[in-house]
């Protein structure tokens, strides 16, 4: 029977290929859409549990006084505290966007054990104030290597003559978790501090403080203590876990997940309808054969499974091809979306979901024609034109 199903699919190669093609396209699209969401959420899901983030309670764009550092360090349960400043510059063109942060170099690798040095050494970065460390992704994209000097134009922190900030690459890192993407440049806080002080005459503030708590410390009590310390100003702070901190950037996307779900529903409806259509056509053309099968003594049940098998076979092939396309194209997609969706990755669970959806579409699309065929009156079926 399966052989007959297979032969019948091959009898209409164009139709079978078109159905397989649309299924493949749908699976590809579905995987891409799901991956956009999982990529966004990866930073939240994999967030470090030891790190706490201290930011202004007022605004994303309000900095905190440097004097807060020593006060935070003194809080019970705080193992270390580091400064973290969004730099917001760009390389040559504004469209060459990637993140740069001014950080405390020695603490960077202590706070983020997930950063591994791929090239160069930690020591050469920590030891020299005019150096930086960059992610493998940036190194690959721009062809930078250890020893190169990267000129960054300060967007938020412009030099008076619009000249660039120059950072020598001391090391290249690889990130083993989604908490830090591999398209980031880290440079010395001291460099940032001194340069800004000489430009504006006033010392700059700190964007965010990051605390590593001691293993036995209770995070909620640390957060409450720190928030309470600055209740009366000059700047109120909000201390959160890393997951909550990352979540605020995800929720900025607003309705995107719902929007993507809407699109995904549209895709699925279109594909289910297309496959139902194909299966109805196939059933209509095979009416006569159904009559023969029944006259030969095949039960309604067998005819039902025979048609359902055809639909599922088509969708399984299409789905398989779609997953293969996803597999092949995802590195390219990841590269082209690197600035909007850094760390774009198709998870194994996404493959599984899309594969199951393909089979489910086959089942749904096959049931109606299969049921109709199995209930055909064999006398009428035999009378049908071949």
């Amino acid at each position: 029977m399966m052989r007959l199903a297979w032969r019948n699919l091959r009898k209409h190669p164009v139709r079978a290929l078109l159905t397989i093609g649309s299924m493949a396209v749908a699976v590809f699209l579905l995987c891409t859409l799901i991956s956009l969401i999982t990529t966004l959420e990866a930073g939240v899901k994999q967030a470090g549990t030891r790190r706490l983030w201290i930011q202004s309670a007022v605004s994303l764009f309000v900095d905190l006084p440097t004097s807060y550092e020593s006060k935070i360090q003194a809080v019970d349960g705080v193992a270390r505290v580091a400064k973290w400043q969004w730099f917001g510059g760009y390389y040559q063109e504004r469209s060459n966007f990637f993140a740069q942060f001014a950080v405390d170099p020695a603490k960077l690798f202590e706070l983020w054990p997930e950063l591994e040095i791929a090239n160069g050494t930690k020591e050469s970065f920590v030891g020299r104030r005019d150096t930086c460390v960059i992610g493998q992704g940036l190194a690959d994209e721009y062809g930078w290597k250890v020893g190169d000097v990267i000129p960054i134009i300060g967007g938020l922190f412009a030099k008076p003559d619009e000249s660039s900030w120059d950072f020598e690459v001391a090391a290249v890192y690889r990130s083993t978790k989604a908490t830090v993407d591999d398209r980031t440049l880290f440079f010395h806080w001291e460099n940032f501090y001194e340069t800004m002080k000489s430009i504006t005459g006033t010392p700059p503030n700190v964007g965010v403080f990051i605390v590593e708590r001691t293993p036995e410390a209770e995070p909620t009590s640390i957060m409450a203590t720190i928030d309470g310390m600055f209740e009366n100003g000059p700047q109120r702070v909000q201390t959160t876990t890393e997951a909550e901190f990352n979540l605020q950037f995800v929720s900025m996307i607003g309705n995107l997940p719902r929007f993507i779900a809407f699109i995904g529903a549209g895709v699925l409806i279109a594909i289910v309808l297309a496959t139902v259509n194909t299966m109805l056509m196939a059933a209509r053309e095979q009416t006569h054969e159904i009559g023969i099968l029944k006259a030969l003594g095949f039960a309604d049940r067998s005819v039902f499974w025979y048609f359902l098998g055809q639909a599922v076979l088509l969708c399984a092939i299409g789905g398989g091809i779609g997953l293969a396309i996803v597999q092949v194209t995802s590195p390219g997609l990841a590269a082209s979306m690197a600035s909007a969706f850094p760390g774009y990755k198709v998870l194994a669970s996404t493959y599984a979901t899309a594969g199951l959806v393909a089979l489910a579409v086959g089942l749904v699309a096959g049931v109606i024609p299969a049921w109709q065929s199995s209930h055909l009156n064999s006398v009428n079926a035999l009378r049908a034109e071949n």
Partner: protein
Amino acid sequence: MSEPMIDVRAVSKRYKRGGETLTVLDQLDLQIEPGGFYALMGPSGSGKSTLLNLIGGLDHADGGQVIVDGEDVGRLTGSDLSQWRADTIGFVFQGFNLIPVLTAQENIELPLSLAPISRARRRKNAAYALELVGMSDRATHRPQQLSGGQEQRVAIARAIATDPKVILADEPTGDLDRDSADAVLTLMRRLNEEFQKTILMVTHDPLAAARADKIIQLDKGRLQGIQENSA
């Protein structure tokens, strides 16, 4: 006299067409002996094909009983009916009704796949059936690569592959030229004589009917008579 192989008792069949009720079979009684070769004749619309479909369990009677090999066909439903049909009946149609995407061998294997036998047995039985109809050299041909006579012989091989007791043939020579028709009729004769198949064959062709043992005449859904062929 032994039990009849096919016992049609007061069978009626009506169709509704455009508000009108058409009586195709009217209280028909008919007994077919085991091992007999019967031709069923009558003008168009006399109910020949309908009778064949009722005996084969493709259709249900509105009244009366159809008993084949001791089984009340009207009582069988669903998969029981299908299974019974697969075991007991072999169909041969005017239009041959081979499945175009399958080879001759595969067409014959198709009904065998319903029987609880091994794949190798299936192969062997199908090959034997092909040999019986003299088509062994065409085993891997598709229906469209065969002539009409050859197609019909494959169709007959398919009908006998499951070793059914009864073969129902609906105008098996209707689409064939004289020589091919002769070959098919000779084959059917042989199935009847050598393998004791009970054969009921609907036909318009007096020459085809002449090869049967008995000729049943049907008109307007009623039995007109059964005559013995002297030859």
